[in-house]
């Protein structure tokens, strides 16, 4: 009897992607689910995933599969996959991973959050299924704290991007960010989350900064997963920040979740995608899946906002990003903005990556100085 109840208990896990797990885990915890997360993406995750997938599958799939294997080994039995509108290979991740993991002999249930079917209600329904939580108030509380954490993480990250290149003592801003992030992860209520953000902002504002420094501003755009996952993009924001570059990542978590989940009439601001479609119109007339049109739209928007350069990152062999990579040199020439395309895969070396970033920063620096003196 006892055995049966143990085997019925659901232990939920989902793939890691940057800070997403903090907010999503909060929702599950509030709903009373038992969760077991894979460790933050690391080389072992990647090698597990690479070993068990086809050679030319995209990098995010390999990492997701690695996460699943690590989580299953740690005792999880319900795996969650998020599928958002975007129709590239992402849409078949869940079924491929399901087949592969069953072949490897694991026993689990795969729950797919299919955002093609519906928005918030579909998500709430799937959360209910995965956790077995029937209480509406608990669900609402979970979603409320989830959104609050998404917002909070974005706020402390945005401040980090601003303060890091300006700091006098290297590493001060990052320290504030990391401690705030840890506290947000542990926070139990929306009130606590708000307090943590307030303290973090005060700390940021009181840290010593160099106000007269000429700061270069760079847009980072490209494929969604690579943008949001620091392991995959080799901490590009940190590397650039330490070189004295203020980055503006074009995909922020809260903006994205709001646009995906909430019905259209609620948002007042133009969403990232809407802006991209509008500004990319002279180069791309149709959305082709993935984040292709966003990459091109962001580059055009950057040149209109007098940004110094654009860094475009994507995983190796990402179909939509191959198209944008082909088109971007043309956009760069027409709009007169420097663009660096970086492709990440399991073989990318850090040294070569840094060299290319440094060369690019040198280039935009010289360009900016020439502009100022003219």
């Amino acid at each position, binding site marked *: 009897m006892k055995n049966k109840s143990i085997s019925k208990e659901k232990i939920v896990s989902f793939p890691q992607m940057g800070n997403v797990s903090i907010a999503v885990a909060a929702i599950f915890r509030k709903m009373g689910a038992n969760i077991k997360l894979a460790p933050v993406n690391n080389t072992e995750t990647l090698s597990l995933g690479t070993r068990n997938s086809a050679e030319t599958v995209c990098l995010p799939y390999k990492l997701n599969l690695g996460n699943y294997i690590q989580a299953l080994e740690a005792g999880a039995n319900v795996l969650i996959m998020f599928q958002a509108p975007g129709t590239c*290979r992402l849409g078949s991740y869940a079924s491929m991973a399901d087949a592969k993991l069953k072949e490897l002999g694991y026993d689990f249930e795969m729950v797919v959050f299919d955002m093609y079917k519906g928005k918030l209600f579909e998500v709430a329904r799937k959360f209910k299924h995965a956790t077995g939580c029937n209480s509406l108030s608990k669900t609402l509380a979970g979603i409320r704290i989830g959104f609050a954490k998404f917002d909070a993480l974005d706020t402390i990250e945005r401040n980090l991007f601003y303060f890091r290149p300006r700091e006098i003592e290297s590493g001060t801003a990052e320290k504030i960010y990391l401690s705030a992030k840890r506290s947000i992860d542990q926070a139990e209520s929306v009130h606590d989350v708000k307090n943590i953000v307030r303290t973090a902002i005060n700390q940021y504002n009181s840290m010593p900064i160099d106000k007269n420094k000429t700061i270069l501003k760079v847009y980072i755009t490209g494929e969604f997963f690579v943008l949001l996952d620091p392991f995959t993009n080799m901490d590009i924001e940190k590397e650039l920040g330490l070189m004295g570059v203020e980055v503006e990542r074009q995909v922020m978590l809260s903006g994205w979740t709001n646009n995906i989940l909430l019905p259209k009439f609620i948002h007042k601001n133009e969403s990232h995608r809407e802006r991209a479609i509008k500004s990319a119109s002279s180069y791309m007339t*149709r959305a082709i899946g993935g984040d292709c049109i966003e990459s091109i739209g962001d580059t055009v928007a950057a040149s209109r906002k007098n940004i110094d350069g654009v860094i475009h990152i994507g995983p190796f062999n990402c179909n939509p990003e191959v*198209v944008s990579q*082909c088109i971007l040199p043309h956009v760069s020439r027409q709009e007169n903005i420097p663009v660096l395309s970086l492709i990440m895969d399991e073989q990318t070396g850090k040294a070569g990556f840094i060299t290319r970033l440094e060369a690019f920063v040198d280039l935009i620096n010289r360009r900016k100085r020439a502009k100022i003196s003219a």
Partner: protein
Amino acid sequence: MKIGIPRALGYYMYYPFWHGFFSELGIDIVLSGHTTKKMVSNGSSLVVSETCLPVKVYAGHVLNLLDKGVDIIYSPSIQSIAPKVYNCSKLRGLPDLIRNVVKRNFLLIEPTLDKSEPRQGLYEYLYESVLPLGITDKKRIKQASKAGWKCMNDYLLMTRAGVDAKTAMKNAINGKIEIVKDETNYAISAAVISHPYNLYDEQVSMKVFDKLKKLGVKSYSAENITQENMENGIKTLNTNLYWANEYEMTGAAGHFLTDSKIDGLITITAFGCGPDSLMVERITRYAKRLNKPLINLTIDEHTGEAGFITRLEAFTDMLYRKKRSDLVEILNRQVFHGDPDHARKKEELERLNSRV
């Protein structure tokens, strides 16, 4: 009025339809030449190296047409063929890609077919196809579409009866239906699974059908089976239609994997093909389960013909041996039961023996 159609990608799937449609409207079609090494390298120089071979070939064909002096190029974007069944991103964005990488002066006709959108179906697609040429009469377009379908159906009728795609295309365009069956007795048969733009472009597939014929193998492909066969094939492999070009891969493979007259499967994929990387993984898994030999050949612009032949030869040798040992086993068992097929099987074995 003249429009240029690149002899690549969509040409191998929809050309009979396009031919019937444009001819009915009095528009002449200029095709680019057959793929050459030069064209592939010209095309490759326009796009980043990661791009898949078929798209590089396509860019090369566009340049070939422009060199011929054609300044109107027809390059449609097939976004989706049914609600939520999308094509690969590179094919969806093909005209956008061409417009941005080919820096010459020409008019690009870029209609969109998107069945996931409420107002972007076949007639809207056809309307967009001829709007830049000044044809706006919807009745005429509908009439021309019928002519297109007739040509397309003739083509499919012939390929499904076993006529090779090249001959069928030629006959369909000339308005003929001619079915000549290949009566040769082959010892073994194999199914070649790939997209038509890889298979029927002789530079890309390195004449795989001729090579197999020389090795004494009867080859089948997705063009030889019906739509229902492919739909059932997808169900056999326990999946749903996800890609617009999934029928010719998963569908055909599912059909041939369960077909007892097929001895083995050869899948050909272009390096960096996104949909194929997932579909072939599934096909390989089921081939193992159903105990059917399968070889996957990856092609790109650097693939050498010698290595390609060696692998085909090794694979067919393996098929011969496997079939022979299976037959010997069956014959040994059936002597005791008096099998009516005994004589036929013995004959087959002799044919195999003479080869090995």
